[in-house]
C-alpha cells in the first residue's frame, strides 16, 4: 500500500477528481492548504498599502492505493493536474504500514 499526497492547483481539483473516479478510485481526502514553492507569492495593494502574500492557496489530495494500482493512479493524477506552468504543485508518495476500517476492523488492502 502506498499513500499519494498531491498538492495541486485549486482550479484543477474537479478535473483530478473526475479522472480519479474514472479509474475506479472511490475514497480520498481533500483539504484547502496554503504554501509556496518556486511560484513564490504575489503583491496586493489596498488604497496604496502594499502587502506581500507569501503563501498561495493550494489543494491537497490524499489517497491510499493498493500496491498493484499505484502506477495507474499516479499517472492519472499527474495527467489531470498538469498545466505545464510553474505552480502545478507536487506529489509525494509514502509507504503505508497498515490501514483499518473503523466500522468493522478490516485490515490492510481490504480496508481501502
Amino acid at each position, binding site marked *: 500500500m502506498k499513500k499519494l499526497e498531491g498538492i495541486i492547483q485549486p482550479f484543477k481539483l474537479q478535473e483530478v477528481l473526475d479522472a480519479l473516479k474514472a479509474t475506479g478510485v472511490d475514497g480520498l481526502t481533500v483539504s484547502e492548504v496554503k504554501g509556496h514553492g518556486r511560484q513564490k507569492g504575489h503583491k*496586493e*495593494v*489596498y*488604497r*496604496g*498599502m502594499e*502587502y506581500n502574500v507569501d503563501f498561495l492557496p493550494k489543494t491537497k489530495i490524499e489517497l491510499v492505493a493498493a500496491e498493484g494500482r499505484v502506477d495507474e493512479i499516479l499517472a492519472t493524477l499527474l495527467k489531470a493536474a498538469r498545466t505545464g506552468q510553474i505552480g502545478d504543485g507536487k506529489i509525494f508518495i509514502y509507504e503505508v504500514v497498515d490501514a483499518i476500517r473503523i466500522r468493522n476492523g478490516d485490515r490492510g488492502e481490504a480496508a481501502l
Partner: protein
Amino acid sequence: MISENRCRMLRLSSFCVLLAGVAQADPATDAKIAGLETAVKAAQSAGDNAWMMTSAALVLMMTGPGLALFYGGLVRKKNILGTMMQSFMMMAMITVLWGLFGYSLAFGEGSAFLGDLRYMFLEGVGSAPNPDYAGTIPQQTFMVYQLMFAIITPGLITGAFAERMKFSGMALFLLLWTVFVYFPMAHMVWGKGGLLNAFLGGKFPCFDFAGGTVVHITSGVSALVCALYLGKRVGFPEGMKPHSLTLSFIGACLLWVGWFGFNAGSALGASGLATSAFVATHFAAAAAALGWMGAEWIGNGKPSALGGISGAVAGLVAITPASGFVKPMPALFIGFLAGLVCYFMVAVVKQKFGYDDSLDAFGVHGAGGTLGAILTGVFATNAVNDTLKDAAGKPVALGLVDGNGAQVMNQIIGCGIAWGLAIVGTLVILKVVDMTVGLRMTKEAETQGMDLSLHGEEGYILES
C-alpha cells in the same frame, strides 16, 4: 427648495386670482377658489412630504447598513461586529439625544453659534411646517430628516479609530462630540441666524447645500485628530488587510443610493432643485470612481474594486455642499478631481506621514469635503438655485462663475471655522474622555479583537 415651492404656489395662486377676476367676486366662487387653493397646497405638501420621508429613510440607510458594511468589510474579521456596532450605536444614541435637546440646539433660533432650547423634548415640533426651514412639510419631517445627518456624521469618524477604541470611550466621545461640535456647526450653517447661514441671515454667507462643512469637514478633520491622538493599531502596518471587500462593495453602493436622499433631499421638497441635486450627485460619483481607478491603474498597474468604490464615495463627499448649486458638467469636474485628490491623500500623503487613519475618514471626508466646499464657491450658479434674491427680486450672483468671486473667500471662511471647531473640540473631548472612562482598548483586547473582547460575540461562526 423653499423658493421654488413658493414659485409654484405663486403661479397657481395667480391663476386662481385670474379666475376670481373673471368670476366677479361671487361668494360661492370665492369659496370654491379658497377650497381649490387649500387643495393645491395640500397636494404639494403631500408630494413634498412623501419625498422628504423617503429621503430621511435613505439617509438612515447610509449609516445602517451602508456605512456599517463599508467600514465592516475594511477591518479584520475579528472586528466586524465591533465596527458595525459603532455605526449602529449612533443610530440609537444620537436619536435619543436629538429628541431630548439636539434638534433644538441645532435648529432653535438662539445665537449665531448655537440654537436655544425652544424645541426641547420636541415641544412644538408637530405636523405644522416651520416656514423658516421648509414651508411645505411638517416640521416633524424636517426634524427627523435632519436627525439622520446627525447620526451619520459621528458614524463617519469611527473609520479613523477603527479596531482599537473601547466601546464606552467611543460612545462617550461621540456623544460629547455631537453636542459640542456637530450641533454648533449645524446651527451655524443651517440654523436660523447662524453665523454662516447664507439664506437665513448669516454674517459670512457660506453655501453648503447638504453638509460639506457640517458633515464631512467636521467628521473628517476630527477623524485625523483621533487617529493622531490614539496612535496606531497594534502591529500596524503589517497584516491590516480588509477582510471582506465584498461587504465593503455592497456598503459603498448602498451609500451611493442613500446619497440621493442626502443631497436631493436637502432641497426639502420634491422640486426641480431636488432633481438638479440628484443629477449632480450621480454625475460626481461616477466621475470620481473613474478618477480614482484611473490614478490607481497608472500608479499600480491595476484598477481595484476598493479603488472604484472609494472613488465613488469621495465624489459623493465632494459634491455634497455643491449639489444644489451647480450644473451637471461642473459636478462631473468636481467629482473627477475629488477622485484624484482623495486617492493622492490616502495612497501618498497618508503613507508618507504614517498616521493610522485606518479606514481613511480624513483622506476621503476631510479632504473631499474641503475640496467640495471651496469648489462650491467657484461653480455655484443662480441658474440652478435662485433662492437668494436682491431688492428688485432678481436672483443674486452666487459663485465665481456668476461673477461673484468673493464667494470663494466665504467658502474658505466656512471651511476654516469647521476645521478649527473640529480640531479644538475633538482634542478637548478626547482628553476629557481619556481621563475619565479611557479611550483605547488594552493590547490584549485589541489583539483578541473587538467582537469577542467588547461584545462577547463572533461575527463569523462558520462551524455552527
